[in-house]
């Protein structure tokens, strides 16, 4: 779904300090209505702090937050009515059943009992919890618990949903279910702010994203835009024997190729993005009747981009 350009969330020059530590450092960003916006960053980069500040749960030192064109403040109940929050840790009542939890949180937004009942059932269906409605949270697996956490945040069909790392420590089946669900929510018209440190999720899901580190937005755009912004090369490796010297020289002379190494039948080439590329090289081999035994190509990822920008890995070292 292509996002329209109306702004759902506008953060302007936000600063949040914890004594000496600057958790959010003059951060500005705009999230458009109808898009899935990813906030990508390592642990401690300020993703959750940013969400809590946007929701006015956290006092910030400077800056402004607007949601759907209105200034967000703790008592902006009309705005809160349109927001759904799925916190990082599953936050449900252990004493209530799956159904009870969803009904409780939905009931804080929806007064009408009949409407609420329909919404609760829809949320149960949506998250695939039909077989577990009478279970207490303690009886659920980690993945099911995350799904319950999601159901509690989205049952009232909010226009703006904050999903704070919803797939941490989740099995692949539940993760896929959650990711599919997030896509469906967007299809239903919700704007989604999705924080994670799993870059593959962002690449699959998000229309746009910001990479955060130390409370700063390092870069914002689509995944392709962000990768293309970087100066990282595509790495191509071919197993090929008897490479003639003139072809090697031709490749060396190509300005798109930044690095070339040929030893023991293994040719390693690093080429700039948008340059000759894998297809160009294979075409050159074909023209010279050369057939590589194997070919591999590695394009830069968001993780490589993040590593290039910040000098550290995006994923946990777990």
């Amino acid at each position, binding site marked *: 779904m292509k996002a329209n350009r109306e702004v759902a969330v506008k953060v302007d020059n936000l600063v949040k300090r914890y004594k000496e530590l600057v958790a959010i450092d003059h951060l500005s960003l705009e999230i458009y209505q109808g898009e899935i916006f990813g906030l990508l960053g390592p642990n401690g980069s300020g993703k959750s702090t940013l969400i809590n500040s946007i929701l006015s*749960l956290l006092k910030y030192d400077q800056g402004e937050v607007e949601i759907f064109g209105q200034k967000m403040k703790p*008592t902006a109940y009309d705005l809160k*009515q349109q927001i759904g929050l799925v916190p990082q*840790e599953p936050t449900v009542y252990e004493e209530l059943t799956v159904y009870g939890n969803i009904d409780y949180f939905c009931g*804080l937004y929806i007064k009408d009992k009949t409407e609420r009942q329909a919404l609760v059932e829809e949320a149960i269906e949506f998250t695939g919890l039909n077989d577990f409605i009478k279970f207490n949270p303690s009886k659920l697996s980690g993945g099911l618990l995350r799904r319950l956490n999601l159901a509690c945040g989205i049952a009232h069909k909010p226009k703006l949903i904050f999903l704070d790392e919803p797939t941490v420590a989740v099995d692949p089946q539940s993760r896929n279910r959650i990711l599919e669900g997030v896509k469906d929510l967007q299809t239903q018209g919700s704007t989604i702010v999705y924080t994670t440190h799993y870059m593959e999720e962002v690449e699959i899901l998000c229309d746009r994203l910001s990479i955060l580190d130390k409370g700063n937005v390092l870069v914002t755009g689509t995944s392709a835009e962000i990768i293309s912004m970087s100066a990282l090369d595509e790495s191509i490796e071919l197993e090929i024997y008897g490479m003639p010297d003139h072809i090697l020289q031709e490749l060396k002379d190509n300005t798109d190729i930044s690095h070339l190494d040929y030893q023991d039948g293994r040719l390693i080439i690093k080429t700039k993005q948008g340059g000759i590329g894998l297809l160009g090289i294979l075409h050159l081999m074909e023209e010279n009747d050369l057939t590589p035994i194997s070919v591999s190509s590695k394009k830069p990822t968001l993780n490589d981009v993040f590593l290039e920008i910040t000098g550290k890995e995006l994923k946990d070292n777990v």
Partner: protein
Amino acid sequence: MFKHLLKYSSKVYFYNKANMMWNFIFPFVFISVFFLALGNFKDPTAEFSKDPIKLAIIASDQQEADNLTEFLGYFGEEGIAEQAKSTETSSDDVFFKYQLTNAEGADQLLEDQAVQAIVKASNPIEILAYNDLSKVKSSLLNQFLESYESICKTTTVIGDRYINEKLSNPENLSNSQLNKQDINTIIEQTKMDLKAKHEDTIDIFSDKSESTELSTSPLLIYFFACLAYIAFYPLNTGVTTLTEITANQTGVGLRNSATPISKTKMFFAVFIPRWIIHCIFTLAIYLYINLLGINLGNNYLQIIVLLILGTTSAILTGTAIGALFNFNTGLKMGISIALPLVFSFASGMMYNGMPRIIAQYIPWFNKMNPIGIISKGLYMLYSDPTFTRFNQQIFSLLIIIGIMFILTIFGLRRNSYESI
């Protein structure tokens, strides 16, 4: 919406196993253990049975002995020796059976287990020995003899004042009559003297009390403090009430804070059912104590009001702690468990002389100790026929409730936090 909140906050509270254990089962167990510990393990209700107390009275002073036996005659009957081996009387009107005798005779009766205590009729009255008398009954005997002494003092004061008045006005002496105004003055002055004397004697929370064994009823003081402790026990409920709706304390607190419900509305929705549940529960404990046969006095309505206010002050103290302080939930829970214990210790639950020590060294502490106030309220209802000092305790509790409520609302006004 409010109904929805009420429904679910009650459910959450009732279905919480830890709550059930610590807030509902533990107090019953606590009271039961307390009851058994202070009573006879094999037959605990015997402690509180209505079988008459058998006394040997040593007539060291004939006048004192006559006065005492005359007084005892209103509550019991003479002739213990003859009936000692016969079946026990079960008459509800007979509280005492007594036998006038000399010191040797009394010792013999005690040795034969024909009597349970030896009382020396002197000024002041002395209990010389006990044998096979339960703590409750010894406490009852103490209380009874206290009342007797108090009446004797009253009679003496009135008599002295009357004679003094006569001597200072020889005309009145010759007429053997006082005018109405004079009599009223004497009575008024006498009342004041007696009141002061009475208050000094019965107020165990005062450092001026006569600290004799006779002036207090140790077992009942334990039970007053114990019931006050139970009434104030739900302090932790107040703390958890706040953690559930405060964003920086728990996950559900964060989630609840992100909803379009004002914090004040959410607070009342969570607070009200828990407050009602705990008030009912405190009264159930009071009923249970009565069923155990422990009589804490007949002013049932006043006791109920006192206990409800005590429980209210407990929950609101908890909510104030939860709303004002930002330390972690574990520490808050620790405080909510420790605080009632400290307060109850100061109120005499572990050692009945503690209130007097506190009154002597840190008197302000008794004024702000809610368990002490509840305990004192129960004590006053039991021992003071006027409601003056009971009303003072009610007033003190109302002040505490007011302050805690204001602090809670003040703390709740914070809608966003420095850290989450």
